[in-house]
């Protein structure tokens, strides 16, 4: 496996190919195997169809009463998770090696840059195909028992379609990384592009006559193929577009890589020539303590997340006001929408109750932010950034808690700005809301962000950054499934209580539910205490 860059790269990908492929394949198999239970009675089947219509904006429900249709709809929500590994691998492929300094050694070999890059890209594509194949085979294994419509060919086509959308985001990540100094920045930007692409694809399912806009997103073409849906099948044209797009973006990335400095960026601004400086910085607030430094480190990403979360909340207020009349008639006429409203804690289609249901996404978004912060903590520890800090007379406890306090400050900042944005939007549009409850809904998301950060810090006591982040993301997806889809599937109350979202309640309607919130605070505090105890005794990586 060490005979070429291609084989060596493929070897590096063997664990993710198996891990990601088996994990995502098993998820699909489980969804398929559970179908007889979900469709146990005609009424249950009808409820699922109705539920699918409610969540059409997330994933298009086509023939949802069939095994393939149901599985495709349900799997559609996981696109965010599916693409994470190729995204990280794409930024690590060239920029990651440059960060580590190993690219210098690689390029000292008698091989051209283009060949080095192409061998790595080819290995990644092979890995994605293998991953798609594993997903396809597991889909077939799970589906063969419940439906004769699910053939091996359609299952493999399903896996290949996943491999293609992964290849597109791999190429985007690779291209973005040509313009950033660090892998981390490229990963952040590409993750942002992924979220935007998913939202752009959603638009045509919510707003009529906007297909042209959604066509700008690669996710749109991924969703055009539905190989598991009987009579729908793969869309060769869409698949070809995904293939062409990934090849085009990949080629552009390789072209740029071949022409720039190793360790440099494409399109960098010329540095000003200046005399060497011997002075120390004056009055830099971020250099006073571990806490202030941590805050300085996460300031930029916090601002972007604030913009996204507060902007999303304000946008929801505006949408609810603008579509007030249509939403009310739609909600009153749809039993499934009634269930959706129940998630928000109400049976009536008032503005506040509609908004309350939408507000359930606020803790999800803040928790996603917390996942990125937990990743940064474990990555810094893994990269040896704590070694010199811990050689100063700073207790380990203070180092960890200083960092956590910075994340807490960031979550408070995001929540307060969300409150400000929604208040302004409410006042601006004339949407009547109880401002006390609005404050409760905006501020009570804070413990949810801190809970995820604490669990991430706890995992970091044992796990590598990539595994920590993967596990935390997976946990978040599971919780979303339990709380958002669980009621529709009549999951037992005990199961629903396992998801933190259960304890968010409906603060926009009923104010802060202190007892529920205390559960989250208590679990978060225990996780943080355990993380601290572990960090105080563990070996620090060099």
């Amino acid at each position, binding site marked *: 496996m060490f005979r070429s860059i291609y084989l060596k790269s493929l070897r590096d990908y063997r664990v993710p190919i198996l891990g990601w492929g088996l994990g995502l394949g098993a998820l699909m198999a489980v969804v398929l195997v559970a179908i007889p239970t979900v469709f146990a009675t005609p009424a249950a089947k009808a409820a699922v169809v109705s539920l699918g219509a409610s969540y059409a904006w997330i994933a298009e429900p086509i023939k949802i009463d069939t095994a393939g249709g149901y599985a495709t709809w349900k799997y559609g929500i996981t696109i965010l998770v599916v693409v994470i590994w190729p995204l990280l691998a794409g930024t690590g492929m060239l920029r990651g090696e440059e960060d580590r300094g190993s690219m210098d050694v690689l390029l000292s070999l008698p091989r051209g840059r283009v060949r080095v890059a192409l061998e790595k890209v080819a290995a990644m594509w092979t890995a994605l195909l293998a991953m798609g194949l594993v997903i396809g085979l597991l889909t077939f294994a799970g589906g063969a028992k419940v439906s004769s419509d699910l053939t091996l060919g359609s299952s493999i086509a399903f896996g290949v379609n996943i491999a293609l959308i992964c290849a597109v985001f791999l190429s985007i990540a690779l291209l973005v990384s040509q313009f950033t100094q660090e892998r981390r920045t490229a990963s952040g930007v590409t993750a942002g592009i992924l979220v935007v692409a998913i939202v752009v694809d959603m638009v045509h399912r919510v707003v009529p006559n906007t297909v042209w806009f959604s066509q700008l997103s690669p996710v749109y073409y991924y969703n055009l193929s539905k190989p598991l849906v009987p009579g729908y099948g793969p869309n060769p044209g869409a698949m070809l577009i995904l293939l062409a797009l990934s090849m085009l973006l990949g080629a552009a990335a390789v072209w740029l890589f071949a022409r720039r400095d190793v360790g440099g960026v494409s399109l960098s601004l010329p540095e000003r020539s200046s005399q060497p400086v011997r002075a120390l910085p004056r009055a830099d607030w971020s*250099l006073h303590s571990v806490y202030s430094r941590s805050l300085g480190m996460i300031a930029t990403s916090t601002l972007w997340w604030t913009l996204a979360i507060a902007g999303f909340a304000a946008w929801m207020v505006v949408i609810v006001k603008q579509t007030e009349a249509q939403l009310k008639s739609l909600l009153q006429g749809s039993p499934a929408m009634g269930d959706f409203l129940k998630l928000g804690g109400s049976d009536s289609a008032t503005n506040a109750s509609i908004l309350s249901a939408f507000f359930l996404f606020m803790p999800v978004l803040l928790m996603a932010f917390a996942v990125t912060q937990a990743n940064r903590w474990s990555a810094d520890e893994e*990269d040896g*950034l704590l070694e010199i800090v*811990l*050689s*100063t007379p*700073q*207790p380990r406890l203070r180092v960890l808690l200083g960092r956590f306090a910075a994340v807490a400050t960031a979550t408070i900042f995001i929540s307060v700005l969300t409150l400000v944005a929604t208040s302004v939007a409410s006042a601006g549009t004339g949407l009547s809301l109880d401002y006390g409850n609005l404050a409760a809904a905006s501020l009570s998301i804070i413990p949810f962000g801190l809970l995820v950060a604490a669990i991430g810090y706890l995992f970091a006591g044992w796990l590598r950054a990539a595994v920590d982040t993967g596990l935390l993301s997976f946990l978040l997806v599971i919780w979303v499934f339990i709380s958002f889809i669980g009621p529709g599937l009549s999951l037992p109350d005990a199961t629903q209580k396992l998801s933190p979202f259960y304890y968010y309640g409906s603060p926009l309607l009923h104010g802060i539910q202190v007892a529920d919130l205390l559960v989250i605070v208590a679990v978060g505090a225990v996780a943080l205490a355990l993380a601290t105890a572990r960090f105080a005794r*563990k070996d*620090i990586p060099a």
Partner: protein
Amino acid sequence: MSSIIQVERLTKRYGGKRGIDDVSFDVAEGEVFGFLGPNGAGKTTTIRLLMALLHADGGSARIAGLDCWEKTIEIKRLIGYVPGEPSLDRNLTGGQILEYFANLRGGVDRAYLKTLIERMDLDTSRKFRQYSTGNKRKVVLIQAFMHRPRLLILDEPTSGLDPLNQQEFDGMVREAREEGRTVFLSSHVLSEVEKTCSRVAIIRDGRIVRVGGVHELKDIKRYEITIAFAQPVPADTFARLDGVAEVETLNNGLAVRLAMQGAADAVVKAAAQFPVVSLTSYEPSLEDIFLRYYERDGGEAPRQVARV
């Protein structure tokens, strides 16, 4: 003189793999102590145990009479540390990094810090990621020296420094010693240890194989004598003499090279029976002694290398 570092039967394992085993040594206050060993011998593990970055599986390590793990904060007030593979925030400038660590330590004399920056010729306005390897090393060295610590623990501190800065570093270590401060220096640059340190410990495969003064090590060293004769001399003339470890015949018996350990009296008397043209004795450097400790059959330091 009292010991500032006391290490006794210190043991660390990484799962089933060896770290260090039963390592014991003392470092006296005010001395410059060298810690020698090849890659993977256990130097960095020992240092990271002293810094309480690793938790020992057995034994004890004390600095200034305090347990390294239990009293780590008190100890770190006394220490300046240079890690073997320093990693710092790539997006901060050198100046910001130094200011940050000065704040974390507290009580750093900014005027002295600026003097160090001048001495090391560091441009503090550039980001860490833009520095060369040598400049990155300078930042790490300055942060270790900036608070005039009582004890400096330096893990391969000069790797990547150019000769001028290496000279500056030697000066800084000399000044520290003159001020009565202690330096614990891990290195495999033996000339550096030889000229800087008063005592050394040699670690191999996780175990200490030798601790002693640099001069003491030289006294017990193996050395070489080469004797040229006017006529061929039988090799076995010297083979069984006291102090002779090895004999090599050169130039068809017209010369012999003797590896010696101990007094040369018997050799000189035996050589006197023949017409001697020249006699040279070769004093091995610390490097020779060091390599000898790593000699093994098929190992990384074959005998012919040791004799170069």
